């Protein structure tokens, strides 16, 4: 069992409050990802859990024990750093075994553990090399190996893939997911890359300016973002967020109108938004379809053929272009006049003037 619990945890640097009373419960064997733009406090939060940063107020529990004042090495955690932070003058084997050496683990046991970790990460042939003689991906694996050797309760990752090139990043992502399964360990992972978050996480914690914006599974965040911030941060290509005005309400939803006076029906609770209120409409790029009788008219401004899909940026007269995801072989051309409609299965999202999601008119059926 390895759980991590935060209760009203906050962090102040002088008079500046950078983490504002966070509550979070990380479950046993969960892969949880902290995601957010730079400066949102995700790394600081990870370092507070690690014990590298002091907790100003609130309590941190690991496996139910309060560890606020426990030094980093006694918390039973291992951390993988963004820069890998390998010891450059030591061989791979010494890097992996350093913690065990400090803990005075007998040599034979130490070597066995190092070899076992090296095997998991396919580092067996590199044990005598120094970090300087390794490639980026190999260094990354050594850094992870150093964590594995300690058999920690919780693994902490601080943007571990951001120094790798794109191809290697995808490969390491898969490898990390495999490791998580094999070690069945609790992992906390920090990234600013929402794709990494979406692909690896059991649950994602979206942070913004030291506050938890939303916690949920990747699909929960994608389908039911709590705010325009989460909606905009999760999902690639980005969601279309349009300013709208509520024009009518009924038990099954509301009607909103775009600046161009196009009306769109949204299944959002009418009692939450009075008629006349301004709101934000969120439409995922794949929620839109090209249809000759669609209500939204515009002109194609940019076309990106990605092979498997085509991204089309349509000028509908607003401040920003509308992103639409079409099939890879769609013959759409720049300059073409198109009409867009909300797809039959798509659910438009509605946010109030503060950017918070408006709850649905009819609760989705419980399974």
């Amino acid at each position, binding site marked *: 069992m390895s759980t991590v619990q935060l209760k009203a945890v906050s962090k102040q640097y002088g008079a500046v409050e950078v983490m504002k009373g966070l509550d979070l419960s990380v479950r046993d064997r969960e892969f949880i990802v902290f995601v957010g733009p730079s400066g949102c406090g995700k790394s600081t939060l990870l370092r507070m859990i690690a*014990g*590298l940063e002091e907790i100003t107020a609130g309590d941190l529990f690991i496996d139910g024990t309060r560890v606020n004042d426990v030094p980093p*090495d006694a918390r039973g*955690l291992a*951390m993988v*750093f963004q820069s890998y932070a390998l010891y450059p003058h030591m061989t791979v084997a010494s890097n992996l075994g350093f913690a065990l050496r400090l803990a005075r683990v007998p040599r034979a046991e130490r070597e066995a553990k190092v070899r076992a970790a090296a095997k998991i990460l396919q580092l067996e042939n590199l044990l005598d090399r120094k970090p300087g003689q390794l490639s980026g991906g190999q260094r990354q694996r050594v850094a992870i190996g*150093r964590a594995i050797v300690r058999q920690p309760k919780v693994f902490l990752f601080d943007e571990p893939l951001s120094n790798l090139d794109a191809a290697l990043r995808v490969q390491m992502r898969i490898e990390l997911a495999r490791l998580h399964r094999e070690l069945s360990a609790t992992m906390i992972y920090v990234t600013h890359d929402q794709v990494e978050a979406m692909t690896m996480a059991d649950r994602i914690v979206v942070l913004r300016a030291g506050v938890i914006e939303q916690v949920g599974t990747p699909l929960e965040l994608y389908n039911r973002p709590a705010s325009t911030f989460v909606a905009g941060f999760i999902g690639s290509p980005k969601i279309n967020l349009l300013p709208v005005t509520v024009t009518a309400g009924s038990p099954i939803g509301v009607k909103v109108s775009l600046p161009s006076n196009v009306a769109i029906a949204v299944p959002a609770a009418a009692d939450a938004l009075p008629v006349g209120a301004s709101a934000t409409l969120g439409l995922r790029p794949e929620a839109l379809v090209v249809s000759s009788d669609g209500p939204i008219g515009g002109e194609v401004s940019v076309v990106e053929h990605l092979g498997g899909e085509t991204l089309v940026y349509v000028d509908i007269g607003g401040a920003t272009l509308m992103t639409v995801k079409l099939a890879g072989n769609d013959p759409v051309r720049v300059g073409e006049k198109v009409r867009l409609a909300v797809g039959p299965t798509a659910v438009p999202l509605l946010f109030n003037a503060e950017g918070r999601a408006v709850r649905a008119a009819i609760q989705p059926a419980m399974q």
Partner: protein
Amino acid sequence: MRPSTRWLIVRTILGWLVALVMAFPVFWMALAAFKTELDAIASPPLLFFTPTLENFAEMNERVDYIAHAWNSIAVAFFSTAVAILVAAPAAYSMAFHPTRRTKDILLWMLSTKFMPAVGVLVPIYLILIWAGLLDTRTGLIIITLMANLPLIIWMLYSYFKEVPGEILEASRMDGAKPLQQLVHLLIPMAAPGVASTALLAIILSWNESFWCINVTAVNSGTLALAIASFSNPEGFFWAKLSAASLASIAPIMVFGWLTQRQLVRGLTFGAVK
């Protein structure tokens, strides 16, 4: 001829010129050491002469070369070793756990070097008498150590600063306490810097003459004192002074020659990143 080649030649010639101008006094002194006193003061100066070793023999009669050399070695190496032991933890805490006052303390330490040593001669002399350390190796070692400490802390501080903070954080996660971080990580990682700091400190203490001349005599005088004894009020024996100087600087020059690669690497470390 390509301009870059021409420039290289000009630079080489300039480099040799500067080196020759700077090395000339040492070269001339080395020549004089092997001249008779008459040849040494001949005018115009003699470049060719019959070399003699009598200056060295006479020097050894007047001063005990081996005893002075031993004092020099003891003072240089011992003061450096202790200084590094004291400076490493100080530099560690200033580099990795700085407080609001760290910068001030560093500057204050350096400021002790702004004052000419003679300014504290009388108090230090009195302290040495009081402590019974006048004309002892211990006394000279303590003074040399104190005099070099600010520079050594500054150098170690800047070498330690180059070690990425995440590596120390990783070691904290691995369970390394401050002393273990210093022994297992910082000193090995900053080894070139620590080595060149030590070399510089050895050379500085070897060449230190002010304190040596003023607070030591027969018991603990280093080679610097031996040289000084040849320039005295009764007369100025050029050839013997040169012989004594050559004998004094020879060990440290050989030492410097052997370690020059390390020394240059250490002193330019960080400057060319």
